[in-house]
């Protein structure tokens, strides 16, 4: 970091105090409390607590439902971001060509950012309804072709589609901004070297976009872990048969419906570590994708 000019300590304290108090109270205390509770057996209605060491972890880790939820979370974390980023990349490359009407398209593509997952979930339930929705005609031809209320895979697909819909805007903004900062001279040099526009997509644009692609992956990974909650809660409530119960939803149910505070806190800790390890891994990778522009 470059050296700052001012040096007054009290002024400095006054400037950073608000954010520190805020994140201490509403972030660090809850995070610390989750770690603390994962080592205790908490009674739901203030019945006191008892130190149990790693028993909570043993209990959670031996629970098949936990592993199922973790596995589904992992699959979801791979499928949804890959689709969202892949589609966003194609859209960004297309929008970057500056065709007539593309500024309107650019505007519309960002709208889903302003629509809550829980709100669009309500709409998607209807859109994917086996009898009223878009697949209803197919169901009439092949009965049972599509039914997310019964078929776990169908349900999972609806959540993925909704998540992708919700996730496109942010990735699109980042990738398009990245494309627009590719220096004009580089493009011109490639033209002089005889690279066609198609060729430049692969040889110039995507390679130079690696930092932004990387950024979108990091953000999407963390985002999808938690953002799916609003979709699941309004679309499938974890069903059918737990097929869409991701870890974030299971924690909510365990903590707020079953009042298993210690179990929920323990899973919270595991999920936090999971996210932190993923982010750390991705930042290790980052060293390989940075270019000097």
């Amino acid at each position, binding site marked *: 970091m470059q050296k700052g000019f*001012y040096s007054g*300590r009290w002024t400095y304290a006054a400037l950073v105090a608000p954010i520190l108090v805020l994140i201490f109270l*509403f972030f660090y205390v809850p995070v610390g409390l989750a770690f603390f509770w994962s080592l205790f057996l908490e009674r739901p209605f203030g019945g006191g607590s008892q130190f149990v060491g790693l028993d909570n972890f043993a209990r959670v880790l031996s629970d098949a439902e936990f592993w199922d939820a973790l596995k589904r979370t992992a699959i979801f974390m791979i499928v949804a971001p890959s689709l969202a980023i892949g589609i966003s990349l194609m859209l960004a490359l297309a929008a970057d060509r500056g065709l007539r009407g593309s500024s309107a*398209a650019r505007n519309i593509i960002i709208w889903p950012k302003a629509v809550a*997952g*829980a709100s669009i979930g309500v709409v998607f339930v209807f859109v994917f309804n086996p009898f009223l929705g878009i697949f209803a005609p197919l169901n009439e031809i092949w009965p049972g072709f599509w039914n997310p209320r019964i078929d776990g895979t169908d349900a999972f697909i609806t959540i993925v589609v909704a998540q992708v819909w919700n996730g496109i805007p942010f990735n699109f903004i980042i990738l398009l901004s990245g494309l627009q900062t590719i220096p004009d001279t580089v493009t011109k040099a490639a033209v002089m070297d005889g690279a066609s526009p198609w060729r430049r997509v692969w040889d110039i644009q995507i390679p130079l976009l690696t930092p932004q692609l990387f950024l979108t992956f990091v953000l999407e990974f963390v985002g999808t872990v938690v953002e799916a909650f609003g979709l699941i809660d309004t679309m499938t409530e974890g069903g059918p048969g737990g097929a869409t119960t991701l870890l974030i939803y299971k924690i909510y149910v365990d903590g707020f419906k079953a009042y298993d505070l210690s179990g929920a806190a323990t899973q919270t800790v595991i999920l936090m570590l999971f996210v932190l390890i993923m982010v750390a891994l991705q930042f290790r990778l980052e060293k390989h994708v940075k270019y000097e522009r």
Partner: protein
Amino acid sequence: MIERTRSIDIAARIILIVGVAFILAPLVIAFLTATLSYEQFVRNGGITLQVGTHFLDNLAYIWTETALPAQLWNSIVISTLVAAIKCAFAFTATFALVFFDNRLNRIVFGLTLVTVMLPLELVVITTYQIVANIAMPLNWILALTGLGEITGLGSDLRLSLLDTYVGVAAPIACASTSVFIYRQFFLSLPRDLPKAAAMDGAGPWRFMWDILLPLSWTPLVATFMFWFIGGWTQYLWPLVAASTPDAQPAVVGLARLATTEQDRIPEVPMLMTGALFVSFIPVLLIAVMQRQIVRGLNLSEK
């Protein structure tokens, strides 16, 4: 440049059309359905391209018969609070980080960095406990130090922020992404600016107020809009922190309407009207202010 771009332009056009269709499809379906009366909807037996005449009727129903209008107001207040806290706190803190020479800079920056990597939804269980009794950390201190005995305060103070605007907004405002955006922006300013201000007789506060604040207008407006929208679309945390319909924001209210009466045939046109009703403010915002938001966030440089 003179080159043949026909094939790639056609491909680009197709991609954009398909993409826009995918984005608009659920919104259009929601709107078309929202224009139907329940009877029309049942008669159609599914999604059709018919534009009905009952949109205003449905809207009037939402307006008078549901809690959504009041909850829309809750959303406005909560989102404004979230955006204001995020912008103001991050602004002063980033000013300190970039323009002050202090050994704590690295630590403060690190502490804010972690809040970005662990979203609120992850720790919703324990955040709930803290917000249910914000005096809890104080109680620990009182109990651990014995001060509670000495002062007669005890160690069982209670102050619940559940069902309050601040209680819902404060934890959402913790993610300090703004610090990165402002830091990037401050570092791009001429380095001698605080020196010039010092020569003109302006100290750090005056510099922040007279020079940095007006200069930062673009990123400030953009982040404010962005966090406003971010606060609006929150779901899990408001769902648990606001248990009564009076305190819930509109997104939670809509989801409650959709999921509590499962046994009845869902009044789909009404629900779609509701979905549009709770979404139009942020969508309008992003559609109109898009240029400012994207430019101000400056996401190209991370």
